[in-house]
């Protein structure tokens, strides 16, 4: 029963996204422009793996910050928040929105990965297993922390600029870990060496998802 309504909520968001391409187009164009900017900045040099791994996540962070808040802000703008609140329970809303945000971040990181591999000769992934695990867990971690922040931001007055301000301190442990692990993947370290980083990522994902699941009631219900 609850699974069905969660599924319905996810499908509703996916369908309206596919019809309007509101978030997706903006996100992908944002990725292209920011990767181009990085490309201009680093064109003449031969950047190190550490630097490229850092710039990879800088692009992911700012792109996510530009688009992920839409998930709740759009409901607020269309005036459909109240309908959603009447129709279903908070946990269904949270899980549904979290799944949609996970799909968005995974698309986003996949796009950034493809562009980086294509545009930077120095961004040669040696340990694919480490890279894929890092990007996958990192994307989910991003989504888990940013979903509840999007719900908070939807109630505030200045949404656009406040979102990265709120999200950055919460995302710092994740960002430092994924940058470290991505650099390991570029330097060709084995998954055993990167295991500690991946443990931190799993821990972050669990803590953030559980924490925001418990706190979401207080954000959603007035």
């Amino acid at each position, binding site marked *: 029963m609850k699974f069905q309504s969660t599924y319905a909520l996810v499908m509703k968001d996916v369908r309206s996204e596919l019809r309007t391409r509101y978030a997706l187009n903006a996100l992908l164009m944002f990725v292209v422009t920011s990767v181009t900017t990085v490309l201009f900045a680093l064109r003449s040099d031969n950047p190190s793996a550490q630097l490229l791994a850092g710039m990879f996540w800088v692009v992911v962070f700012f792109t996510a910050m530009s688009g992920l808040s839409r998930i709740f802000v759009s409901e607020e703008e269309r005036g459909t928040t109240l309908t959603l609140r009447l129709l279903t329970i908070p946990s269904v809303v949270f899980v549904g929105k979290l799944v949609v945000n996970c799909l968005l971040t995974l698309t986003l990181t996949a796009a950034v990965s493809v562009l980086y591999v294509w545009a930077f000769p120095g961004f040669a992934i040696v340990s694919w297993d480490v890279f894929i695990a890092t990007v996958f867990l990192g994307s989910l971690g991003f989504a888990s922390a940013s979903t509840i922040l999007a719900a908070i931001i939807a109630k505030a007055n200045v949404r656009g600029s406040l979102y990265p301000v709120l999200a950055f301190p919460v995302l710092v442990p994740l960002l430092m870990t994924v940058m470290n692990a991505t650099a390991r993947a570029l330097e060709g370290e084995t998954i055993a060496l990167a295991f500690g980083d991946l443990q931190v990522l799993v821990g972050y994902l669990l*803590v953030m998802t559980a924490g925001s699941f418990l706190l979401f009631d207080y954000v959603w219900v007035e």
Partner: protein
Amino acid sequence: MKIVRAGVIILITVAIVLGVSIPMVPKPQSFFEYPIIPGLEEKARNIFFHVPVAWTTVVAFLVSLWYGYRYLRTRDIQYDLKSSASAELGFVFCFLATITGALWAKFNWGSFWNWDPRETSIFVLLLIYGAYFALRSAIDVEETRARLSAVYSILAGLTVPFFIFALPRLVGGLHPGSAGDASGQTPVAQLHMRGLMLLNFFLSMIGFNLLFVWLLNLRVRIARLEYHHSLQSM
């Protein structure tokens, strides 16, 4: 509160006077001499200020978090006043801890800022306070502001274990107690203090915690007056 105020004045005065005036010698013979800690020398006197201030920052953050949680459970606006007042004081202490720490780092480690794990943590704590106040000023309705800022401070509090346990493994540290420090492998630094120096340290510790209690009391009373004033003027 009068007792607390008197305690603050006495304890902090005594701690500062002792901390500045007691001579430091290699092998302390009498009770009124401090041992020289290798590598710190006279700069060790900052320990009576920097460490208690940094400690109080963390206490203020936890108090703010606790009152935020209480607000969510009871929806009593008094708790929100306390939570935000504690956050304001925490910000002041956090700023002082950053300044004293940066000065100490300059003269001990060579530069004002090294991105040591604890420096990173206190910087992120400053960012959390900044984000908290930015969020509060962006919401007009009092109940919504109280609710959402409480949720945000709890969410930010969830990242604290990562700074304590995960970050030191990623970045090398300079503070005592970091990974690779010969003196100890625990997250808590070993105290190299004895006798009067240790007493001085704890006097200062208690003094600054009481200072926080006293200031929090004052701030909450002002906030309460402001709140009633805003109700009347509406």
